[in-house]
């Protein structure tokens, strides 16, 4: 069964709650209303001739332009060797998507990861905890507007960049060399010198 046929079955069952199939740029997908996703998933898995028993991937994508967070479900059927991509769009302010863990156990950990990294809440999930990040982590890093918190429990995440520092030393030495007669690069004085931004970075 092709993706189009699966999509038609969905439209027949759920009507307008299942959006149109996107024009196949690379992989076509269809947008499903968030509140119906659990039923859609149950339908896709239990219908014998669909039988999408393999929840291959549950991924979250942050779309600030559309002000939504997409949760993408890649479904596949070992039996019939066909698949379909579903998308659920959740509001960025408070993203809430019903869990499909009850349909595919595989969704358990993948939804946990989506919650962890994008902050999508899945009501009904058995244990919605952070997976990859520490429990006391602030924010959800895969959101586009996430800003790095400086260090973690006093552990700095800054590393000096010797390349830049060496350039600063060179600038200083050459400035002095230009000022006075040429002499070997002196031991660094304490005076901070404003280094111009490297041109390839600016």
């Amino acid at each position, binding site marked *: 069964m092709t993706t189009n046929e699966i999509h038609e079955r969905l439209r027949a069952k759920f009507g307008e709650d299942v959006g149109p199939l996107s024009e196949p740029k690379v992989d076509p997908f269809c947008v499903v209303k968030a509140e119906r996703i659990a039923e859609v998933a149950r339908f896709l898995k239990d219908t014998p001739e669909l039988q999408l028993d393999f929840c291959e991937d549950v991924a979250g994508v942050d779309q600030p332009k559309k002000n939504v967070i997409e949760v993408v479900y890649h479904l596949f059927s070992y039996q019939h060797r066909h698949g379909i991509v579903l998308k659920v769009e959740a509001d960025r302010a408070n993203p809430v998507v019903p869990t499909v863990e009850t349909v595919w156990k595989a969704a358990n950990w993948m939804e946990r990861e989506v919650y962890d990294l994008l902050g999508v809440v899945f009501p009904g999930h058995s244990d919605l905890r952070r997976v990859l*990040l520490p429990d006391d982590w602030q924010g959800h890093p895969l959101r586009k507007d996430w800003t*790095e*918190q400086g260090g973690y429990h006093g552990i700095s*995440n800054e*590393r000096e960049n*010797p390349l830049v520092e*060496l350039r600063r030393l060179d600038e200083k030495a050459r400035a002095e060399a230009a000022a006075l007669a040429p002499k070997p690069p002196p031991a660094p004085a304490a005076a901070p010198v*404003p*280094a111009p*931004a490297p041109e390839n970075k600016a």
Partner: protein
Amino acid sequence: MRQTPGEYFGNVGRTVTSFWHGLSVTLSYLLRRPVTTQYPDRTPLPVREMLPPRYRGFLEVDAGVCTGCQACERACPIGCIQINLEKDAANPKQRVVTQFDIDEAKCMFCGLCVEPCPTGAIQHTREFEAASRSVRNLVFRWADPANPFPVYKVDKNAEYYPRAPLGSLMRAKLEARDWAAAAPQFLPPEPPKPPAAKAPPKPAAPAAKPADSAAKPADSAAKPAPAADAVTAKVAEAAAPAPKPAPVPPAAAGAAEPTAPSSKPQA
């Protein structure tokens, strides 16, 4: 659980037979030659010379054939190469490289910088031993800021580029260095007033994380500093495999072979 007599005595029998095989295999290894080599001091050759020619060791730059095109700098995903070009004070037409630094501590030896190089000036050597007391000493400087080297003019109909034998320059550097040498003393950090001056340390920060496996979750997803965008944008445009059949990708593998015939993998 209950056992039939067959299972009961079958267990004994299988145990005996399987031990017979296993013990005979292990004992037979006493009569075979071990495969380990006694690194570093009991090998027939220095280990660097037993490595295959394509081995991706420390990066080496031959200033003699460097065109100063900065393709390697753009190709590097983590920005461990830094090149600074200026006009020569003597004749303004001549551009000179005042800084060509490679931070081997940050380099992940992916070889992406070697491919876009038009002349094969930057290549991976088979050197891998540069233990150093200070990580700052792992920055290899291929241009002397005091007297910068002029960029190399490529002439179109040259058969080959006069590149020094691969590894010779790096070997010389390593022979000269002292592993316990004092680290260069850096200038104190500046006041964060000019944003441009604060920016440079940033871009490497997010990208450098996977290089050191000790990365903390805290490092997850550093916000891309504006400078990072600039760097990585250049990466994307330049890191594609060089389409023109310049002697580069062959040179990456081939340059070592003529110069190092005895370096065929011994294994």
